């Protein structure tokens, strides 16, 4: 407990004890350690005036001189029939003064000493005597009892005051601990934000700012800390005032260049002629510096960086490091996944150069359509993947059938019609593709039920398959095939619109014809160019 709290507790205890003494008819004065008067009796009138007389003050100061040499200040007769009942007041085990009860008897009011006091205070003895009569109720025995009661009360009140202050201290400490635990919980619960490290860092900054007593919190990652964040690196801040934003960002940027990956640093922020403490903590991954979190301009009662601050910012940095680690693993996994899919589709395209780029174009169109009908970003991503792999079953269809110029025989067409099932079987054991399988299996179903392989109709057809069916047909009609040249755009769109309700989901067909096809056209152009390059290479 700090001495400020002790002082408050002592004062509170003293005033309660004095009030109670007054109710018992016991006047009290407070003295300092050398007997000087600190506080006169609470009672007004004759008693107060008598106590403040030079005569009475001298009696008290003589008594306190005697108490000064006693381990425990003892009750003492100031005059015949007038007893001083001292209770020591201490701070940090040092005696700071006394609370003194004045117990008087009727006998005293008749003594020479009483008269001497009245004279020195220029009081009328007779009037004073009658005014003090109500207080003159003690004898030595009862005075001693009152003294013991006073001591007990003082001890109890001091203990209670101390406990109250301690409970208050505990409560503050507990509240702080709750805040810290809550911060760690929140960060822990947000560790799934692998796609958005910057969003996580913003949360880190906001929470640290709310929990620690710093003017601002800033964070910055190094270039290339995550693949998903290859763009401009922003300094993420919390608490910086609008006018201070640029200064804080500059500070954090400068600091990142000087940050070592192995340890936090306690530094100073100089601003406006004032230097205030700041804490910078590295964010690391495998011992390499990934970024920095800075708690700037400590304020509040303790202007210095504490180990509590360091531990909390350290934990937040560690969380961030793990998140970046996870993000990198996630990125790797995602790249591996997409790379594998692209390899698969490249394998299909390799079998038939006329369909080269078809899978990616269908994937693109499926995505555009999915976005246009308002699917969530995650669903859109999945439809894109479904589009990418929809034709993977063609790997199992003989090349000469795929490449045949001219009309297919029924037998050949039945081989073609196997590709959705083949594709389904190829992909069915990849758990990450379970949700795109319906797209692969059913992208040749027709709205009117005359498609293949299951002859599903209308809304029986999985939604993703209906999206792919449109994209697939559009790209087929727009491309040159072994058996026919590409159709002009207007005819293709007219055909799509016409087939809504027969071949296609009518609502989706209506949306499809409104899509912006500029990126699609760029993709086609790129493939045509690549094709030319390949042909040129062959000719040489």
């Amino acid at each position, binding site marked *: *407990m700090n*001495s400020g709290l002790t002082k408050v507790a002592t004062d509170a205890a003293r005033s309660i004890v004095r009030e109670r003494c007054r109710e018992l008819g016991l006047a009290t004065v407070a003295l300092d350690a050398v007997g000087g008067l600190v506080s006169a009796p609470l009672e007004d009138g004759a008693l107060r005036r008598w106590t403040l007389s030079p005569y009475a003050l001298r009696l008290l100061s003589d008594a306190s001189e005697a108490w000064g040499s006693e381990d425990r200040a003892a009750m003492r007769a100031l005059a015949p029939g007038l007893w001083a009942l001292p209770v020591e007041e201490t701070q940090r085990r040092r005696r700071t003064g006394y609370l003194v009860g004045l117990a008087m008897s009727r006998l005293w009011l008749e003594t020479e000493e009483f008269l001497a006091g009245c004279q020195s205070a220029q009081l009328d003895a007779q009037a004073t005597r009658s005014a003090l009569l109500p207080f003159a109720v003690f004898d030595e025995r009862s005075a001693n009892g009152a003294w013991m009661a006073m001591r007990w009360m003082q001890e109890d009140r001091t203990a209670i005051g101390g406990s109250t202050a*301690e409970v208050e*201290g*505990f409560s503050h400490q507990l509240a702080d601990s709750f805040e810290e635990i809550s911060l760690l919980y929140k960060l822990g619960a947000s560790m799934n934000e692998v796609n958005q490290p910057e969003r996580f860092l913003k949360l880190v900054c906001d929470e640290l700012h709310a929990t620690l007593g710093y003017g601002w919190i800033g964070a910055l990652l190094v270039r290339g800390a995550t693949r998903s964040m290859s763009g401009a690196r922003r300094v993420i801040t919390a608490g910086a005032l609008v006018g201070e934003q640029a200064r804080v960002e500059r500070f954090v940027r400068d600091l990142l260049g000087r940050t070592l990956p192995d340890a936090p640093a306690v530094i100073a922020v100089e601003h406006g002629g004032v230097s205030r403490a700041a804490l910078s903590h590295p964010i690391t991954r495998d011992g390499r510096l990934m970024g920095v979190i800075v708690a700037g301009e400590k304020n509040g009662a303790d202007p210095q960086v504490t180990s*509590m601050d360091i531990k909390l910012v350290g934990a937040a940095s560690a969380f961030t490091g793990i998140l970046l680690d996870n993000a990198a693993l996630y990125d790797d996994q995602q790249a591996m996944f997409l790379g594998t899919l692209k390899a698969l589709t490249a394998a299909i395209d390799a079998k038939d150069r006329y369909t080269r780029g078809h899978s990616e174009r269908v994937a693109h169109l499926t995505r555009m359509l999915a976005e246009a009908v308002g699917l969530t970003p995650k669903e859109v991503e999945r439809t894109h993947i479904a589009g990418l792999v929809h034709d993977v079953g063609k790997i199992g269809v003989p090349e000469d059938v795929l490449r045949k110029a001219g009309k297919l025989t029924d037998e050949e067409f039945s081989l073609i019609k196997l590709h959705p099932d083949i594709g389904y079987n190829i992909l069915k054991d990849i758990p990450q593709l379970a949700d795109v399988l319906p797209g692969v299996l059913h992208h040749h179903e027709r709205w009117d039920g005359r498609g293949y392989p299951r002859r599903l109709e209308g809304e029986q057809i999985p939604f993703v398959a209906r999206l792919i069916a449109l994209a697939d047909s559009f790209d087929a009609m727009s491309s040159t095939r072994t058996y026919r040249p590409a159709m002009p755009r207007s005819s293709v769109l007219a055909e799509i619109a016409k087939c809504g309700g027969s071949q296609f989901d009518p609502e989706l067909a209506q949306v499809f014809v409104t899509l912006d096809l500029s990126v699609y056209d760029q993709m086609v152009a790129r493939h045509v160019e690549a094709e030319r390059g390949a042909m040129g290479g062959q000719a040489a």
Partner: protein
Amino acid sequence: MTQRRALVVDDEAHITHVVTLKLRNAGFEVLTAGDGEEAFEIACAHLPDIIVTDLQMPYMSGLELCEKLKLNPATSHIPAILVTARGHALAAADLAKTNIREVMSKPFSPREVLAKAHRLLGIESEEAREGEAA
């Protein structure tokens, strides 16, 4: 085994309480002090087996306390654990003038304080014994 005596020193009551409880429950007799001066008097009078002290305190810091104890023949052998919110600002040279054997930074785990006290006194901790029994 004779009861071990520990002196816990901190000006923040919640720290002394928490550490005292932990040590007392583990069988220690615990004395407490609210500052370095008081702690020095108590240490000289009662010769504890171990001292757990805060660093920053009014009147006499934990570091000064431990220096004084080290210079006093009667108390120079008493091992100390320093619990501090300023561990990062400690100089090895200052620690070398004391019998501080462990420095722990706040917030600390009371369980770890006990474990370190046990280790410094060569007492097998209950957990270790349980671990062996298991």
